[in-house]
Each structure stands twice: as C-alpha cells, then as structure tokens.
C-alpha cells in the first residue's frame, strides 16, 4: 500500500482526474527506477498532470503537506535522479509533449518539457533547422530531463551542451509559484538563474516549458574513421587536431573491447584488431569540410594512425556512426550486466587516465570497455560484470568510485553529463569541500526552503561527507580496496 497522507490524497483527487493518479502497486511499479536500475523505490503515488495550472496546485499541496516530489521525464537518467521517494509523489511530465511554437526569425522553439529531444529536431526539420545537443538516448529522453541534467551528446564539442542551447524556461517552484528564467533576448536582467537551473537535477523547481535555440543544418558533413594500434597514439591525435585550430562536430574514441562488441552487433566496418578507433565528423560549408578532411587525415596519419577512411557517402557515414551509437547495447550483449561511468578529464590526460583505468580493472579483476567523447575528455568506461555472481556488483561499484577519483586527481570531474543523482553522492565529497557544499545547500534553500524536491540527491549533507571521508585515507584510496564495502 502507498504511504501518503489521506487528506493530502483527497485534495489531490480534487485537482487531478482519477485516471491520472496512480496508486496501486501494479501502476506504480513501472516508475520504480530510472536508467540506473540498481536503485529502486516505489513512489507513494504517481501523478500525471498535463497543465501548468495543475502542476502549480500539486506543488502547493505538496508544500502544505510537506510531501517530497520527484519529477520524471522519460526515466532514461543514469544517476538515479528520477528514482522515486517512497513517501513522496512521482511527478511524471510525460504528458507535456507539445511543441508550442517555432520562431523562424529568431530560430527558436518553445516546447513543453515532456517533448523528446529528437522530436524537436523533427518538428523543425522543414525549416532547415535542428536542435544541436544529441544525447545517445535522444529518441527517448525529454527536454525537461535534458535541462535537469545539462545533457550533452556527440555534437557538443562544437555546438555546446544543453546550457548553451536553451534560452529560457518556465519553472514552477515548490509552493506553486511560476518563475520565468532566462529570456529570448540575448542577455537578461538579474542573476543568471537559468544557469543555476540547467543541470540542477530537479532540485530547484519543476520545468514546465523550455525555449531552445535552433541551428541551421550544416551544408556539408563528412565522417572519418581512423584506427590505431595504441590508445596513447589515438589520444595524442585528439590533441593534435584541436591544436591545428579545427573543432570537429564530433570526435569519439572506442577501445578494442568496445570495437569488437560493436562490430559483432552492427557490423559497422570497424577493424577488429585495432587497439582504438577515432571517429571524427567535420561539418560546415562545402569548401571548409573538404579542407578540414584533408588536414585531419594528414594529422591522423602523422600521429600514427594505421588506417584512415573517409565515408564516401551518407550511408557509409551512417554506418561509421552506427557502431558508436549502438556501443552501449553492443556491450550489453557480451556481458550479463554493465555499469556506465561518466568522468571528465583534461584532454591531455587521456592516455594516462586510460592506462590508469586498465590498471585498476586488472586490480579489481573486472573487464572495462571504453567508448567516449574524446574531444571533450568525457570518459564512459563501461565496467562489465555479472550481478548474479556474489560480490561482483560491489566490486564494480568500488572500481567505478576509484575511476572517478582518478578523474578528479587528473584535474577532472566525477560527472560530465549524467549527473550526480543518488549514484555519485559520495564522490561529491571527493570533488568538493565543506564550503562548496554549504554554498550549494544555501542556493537550494533559496528555491526550495523545505528541501522537498528530490531530497537526498545531487548534493550530500556535510555529515554524510564527514562519514565518507573518515572511511578514506588521504590520496583518494580506500584502506582496503579489495574488501567489499557496506
């Protein structure tokens, strides 16, 4: 049975039709986790509003009865950001699925938060426009979830993350007030509250409308695939391309285990014996792309590429990318389970950190496949494990935590695009000190004084960090990494 206050539920029933209030266990079950399926909880109730007015009323009631609220888009998040609260309401924004207006002059689109990422580009395609941030989950994930996580994608190296491509948003605050943030002017008065909201993981307010900036489709785009017999050479090539003054639209790396898995799955034409491949996409004007393709090909060969292939037509370009885009499910086929890590490091540390990850994997006796946004230094080591084997998931989590610490030590961060959520709450104690955490809590308090939105996520309490850090010796190593924690 659900655990919510009866009086609260009675009031909710007055603002929402009964078929949009899910209370039975069977109805709530599909919402018990997001893409990080190791964390689960049944929400007290699932609510499915479809007007802003009703969202306002729900949040007012939740404030009055002090009921926790977790917003949910498509539930593809990989850090447990949308994991329900057992005593709270899960607010599904999925029914807010309309593109409200498209402004061809300013090249913007106003959409509801439940609109899928790819649906925006589809809706504006006839105008020769598109929405640039393209997470691999773009067929499913929502723009509301993208704003909450500051989602990135393959094309973010050149075109920026969600924060660079959203111009304004409407949010409903806990308590029910509406706040308009950002604006369609190119700058706006007051503090940049939009910047605070993007990437805030549903902790500050519920996003009810988003205006995104659209870009004209580039006239030309070409993809190159190059193979290397060492990951260090491939990593060096990444830096060389950038040093030459070229910003590719995408620059992705896959290591041998990922190459083989992808090849077995979709036959993208990748060389199975290469230690690493680099996929590079160049776009722009016809002349620009031709020049850049020639330059990049030369640089790749200079850096020791054993083979460089330029896609000859659109279908070959699509095939090159198909392996990358299907890399996660491909890895899913070769291992009963996999765990996706999301650290970012300075590009120049790529070679060293990849070697460090390999060492750690050996130490933990686990296999790791690497598929990642090399141009941004955003790593996605996929740890292969079998949840059925006792202790293996715990070892996997410990290896993941060590990899993130390695990223922090290399001058990077514990999350590039997937967010902290529940998953990396302890690693926040590695990345930040007490002062920063206090400042985060002060910021949160401005928008949600009672701490009802997504409680327990994204920013750890000071006492939790004190406990976590007490378990660790300095230098970022667990006293006994071989021992399972808990």
């Amino acid at each position, binding site marked *: 049975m659900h655990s919510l206050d009866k009086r609260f539920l009675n009031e909710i029933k007055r603002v929402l039709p009964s078929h949009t209030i899910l209370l039975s266990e069977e109805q709530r079950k599909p919402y018990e986790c997001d893409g990080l399926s190791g964390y689960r909880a049944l929400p007290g109730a699932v609510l499915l509003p479809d007007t802003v007015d009703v969202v306002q009323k729900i949040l007012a009631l939740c404030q009055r009865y002090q009921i926790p609220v977790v917003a949910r888009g498509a539930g593809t998040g990989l850090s447990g950001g949308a994991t329900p609260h057992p005593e709270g309401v899960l607010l599904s924004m999925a029914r807010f699925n309309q593109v409200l207006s498209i402004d061809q002059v300013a090249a913007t689109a106003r959409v509801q938060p439940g609109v899928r990422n790819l649906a925006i580009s589809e809706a504006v395609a006839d105008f020769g426009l598109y929405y640039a941030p393209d997470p691999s989950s773009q067929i499913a994930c929502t723009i509301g979830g993208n704003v909450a996580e500051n989602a990135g994608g393959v094309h973010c190296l050149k075109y920026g993350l969600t924060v660079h491509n959203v111009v304004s948003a409407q949010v409903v605050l806990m308590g029910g*007030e509406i706040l308009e943030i950002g604006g369609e002017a190119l*700058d706006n008065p007051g503090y940049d509250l939009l*910047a605070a909201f993007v990437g805030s993981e549903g902790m*500050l307010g519920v996003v009810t409308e988003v205006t995104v900036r659209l870009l004209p489709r580039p006239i030309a785009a070409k993809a190159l695939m190059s193979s290397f017999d060492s990951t260090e050479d491939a990593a060096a090539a990444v830096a060389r391309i950038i040093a030459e*003054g070229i910003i590719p639209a995408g620059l992705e790396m896959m290591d041998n285990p990922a190459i083989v898995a992808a090849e077995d799955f979709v036959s993208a034409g990748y060389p199975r014996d290469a230690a690493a491949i680099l996929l590079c996409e160049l776009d722009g004007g016809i002349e620009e792309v031709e020049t850049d393709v020639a330059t990049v090909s030369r640089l790749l060969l200079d850096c020791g590429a054993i083979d460089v292939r330029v896609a000859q037509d659109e279908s070959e370009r699509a095939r090159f990318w198909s392996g990358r885009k299907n890399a996660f499910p491909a890895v899913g086929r070769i291992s009963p389970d996999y765990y996706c890590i999301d650290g970012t490091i300075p590009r120049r540390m790529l070679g060293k950190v990849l070697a460090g990850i390999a060492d750690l994997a050996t130490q933990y006796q686990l296999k790791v496949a690497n598929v990642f946004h090399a141009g941004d*230094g955003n790593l996605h080591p996929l740890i292969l494990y079998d949840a059925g084997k006792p202790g293996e998931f715990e070892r996997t989590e410990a290896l993941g935590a060590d990899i993130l610490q390695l990223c922090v030590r290399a001058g990077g961060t514990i999350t*590039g695009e997937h967010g902290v959520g529940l998953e990396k709450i302890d690693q926040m104690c590695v990345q930040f000190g007490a002062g920063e955490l206090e*400042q985060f809590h002060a*910021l949160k308090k*401005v928008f949600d004084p009672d701490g009802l939105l997504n409680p327990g996520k994204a920013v750890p309490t000071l006492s939790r960090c004190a406990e976590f850090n007490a378990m660790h010796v300095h230098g970022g190593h667990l006293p006994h990494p071989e021992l399972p924690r808990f």
Partner: protein
Amino acid sequence: MADTFRTLSCHGFDSRLQVSDFTQTLAETVREASASGDPLCIQGGNTKKFLGREPVGKPCFMSGYAGVTNYEPTELVITAKAGTTLMAIEATLAEAGQMLPFEPPGFGVDATIGGTIACGLSGPARPYRGAARDLVLGITCINGNGQILKFGGQVMKNVAGYDVSRLMVGAMGTLGIMTEISLKVLPTPKQTKTLVFECSSSAGLKKMTSLFARSIPVTASAWHDDFLRIRLSGVKDSVDAAAAELGGEFDPDGDQFWQKLKEHRLDFFNGPGSLWRLSLKPKNEVLPLTDPYLIEWGGGLYWVKTSRPPSDLIKIAASAGGYITRFNGGDRTENLSGLGDVGMRLNQQLKKGFDPQNILNPGRLFA
C-alpha cells in the same frame, strides 16, 4: 606571489585546495567586513565604473593579483588570476592562434578578466559564438562569509553540483569575489571579411535576421547610419563563398569598425545624452525610435543615445518583449528593470545566500 599549500579544515573534514597568500588575506578581509558589516567595493581595472548602480564601500583591489596560471592551447582552456588584464590574456592567446570567442569589450587598457566576467558583457560575436556566460568553465571565489570556494573546473563538461561559476557572470561582484577564472577559448578563424551594404534600417534588419537560419559563417552584424555590416569568419574558401552569396561591398576597414563598435569608440557613442541599451528577441520590424540608434547582434541589441527621460524607451522595449538598461550617463539610482516580483525576490534571496551580511558591492546590481 608565492602560492602555498594550505589545508582548510572545516566541519571535521579536510578539503585540500591550493590557496595563495593573496587569496587568504583577501578572505580574511572579507571575514572582517562580514563581522563589522562594512561594505567592500571590488575593484578590477576601474574601467567600468560607469556601469550599473553607484559603487559604495571600501575599495578592494584586484589588479595586483595577476597572471595566467594555466594555459594549454590543445585543451582550449585558459586559467588566470582575476586581476590579469584582458589585454594580457588576449596577447597570450594570440600567440597560440586562439581567442576569447565572446570578444569582451574592455573600455580601457586596464580592464581585468575579473571585471569582465563580473560584468558579463560580450562583444559583436555574441549571437554567433556565445556570451561570456557560455564560456566560463570554472572559478575560485570568496563568498560574503569569507569562504574560499572552487566551482566548475578546467574541463568542457562538468555537471557536479550547481553551476555557480556561471551564476557569477553578470553578477557584478555581488555574489563573490572571483580570484581565479577558467575560460573556454577557440582557435582564431584563419580568415575574416567584412561586407558592407548601403540600406535602410528596415532592410538591414531583415538581412541580419535572415542569417540566423542559414548555414553561413557570420560572426558579427550591425546596422548604423544607413550601412549594414556583416562579418564572415572561417576558412578562406568558405568565407569567399559566403561573401559571393551575400553580395555587398568588401569593407577594408572592417576589423577596425568592429573594434570601435565593441569599445564604444564610434562617433555615435560620443553624441549627446545618456547611452541606453535595449536587449530583445531579434525581430524583423525596426523599433519605433526617434533618437539616434545603432543595431547589432542580428537585431537582438539596440544602442540608443538620448537626453530625454526613459519612459518612452521603457514602453518601446516592453512592447517588443525586451528590457532596457542605462549603460552610461545620467541617474544611477534606478533599480533593475525587467524582473517580475518572483524573480526580484529570488534574486534578493540568492544574494543573501551568497552574502548574508550584504557587504560585497552592495546595491551595485540592484537595491
């Protein structure tokens, strides 16, 4: 100044942060100010003292704290102490063939990177290459409690914690004193070319706005005094192809024009009256203005010179869905316009969340 390692110990656990003596002393100053309630006035190069509301408080000098602390061209990131001059940063980048994509105005040779980011002003490239806020990757700052804090970092993608670094942009030093800043930089385009067209403001505006939806390497646009100028940047062949497509005349003094526009050294800016800035969503219809004006940013920004009271301008800006700020000259006591009641309240609470005693540049951004 010698950087020393210190271990800051608070709340029973340690966080290791590299803190310079300067920063440590400054934090001490802020803690004293916070205890006494006496405001501090953060001063960079003192080049933008006309901007915003009247500065008050004991000056707190940043320009001595200068120097690029980390620059690795292949990372596309530069990190510098907040008092480093904009010119020094631009010179360092130029040596490696790179630049600050948002082309910030300096309004004087002494402008510092701290003041530049605090003001959040961007130059002619803004609609095409992003604003100051788009390029800030990380900062070290001192909040109103005198705590030394580090947010973001030197990497392109980072979603750990709220994006406090971006919050500092345009805050005019009211949320914290920045001591170190990391910015994303870009390669300088190999070729730039400015085209000039003689046309009415209405025709010029239509041409500017039409470029947003076209795949053309535009990096600046402005209409003034019956001339529209469009800057193209990129590889030579693409720039030439785009120039051929757009028509117009080649302007040999183009680079100078954009520089003067950015630094407000065109004759227009010397005319009588206060300088007003109207920021709005780019539209095809020219605003019904009777005073001299200049349009840039693809129609998203109007500069207006007038000695008359601003009531008409406020109406015009509002009816176009934009907002207006007094940029230079005249009465500086007006409060920030364009924020609704909820927005204003949250702005004030946010200020409190960072600076509970209201000692950092109090009243510079809003009352």
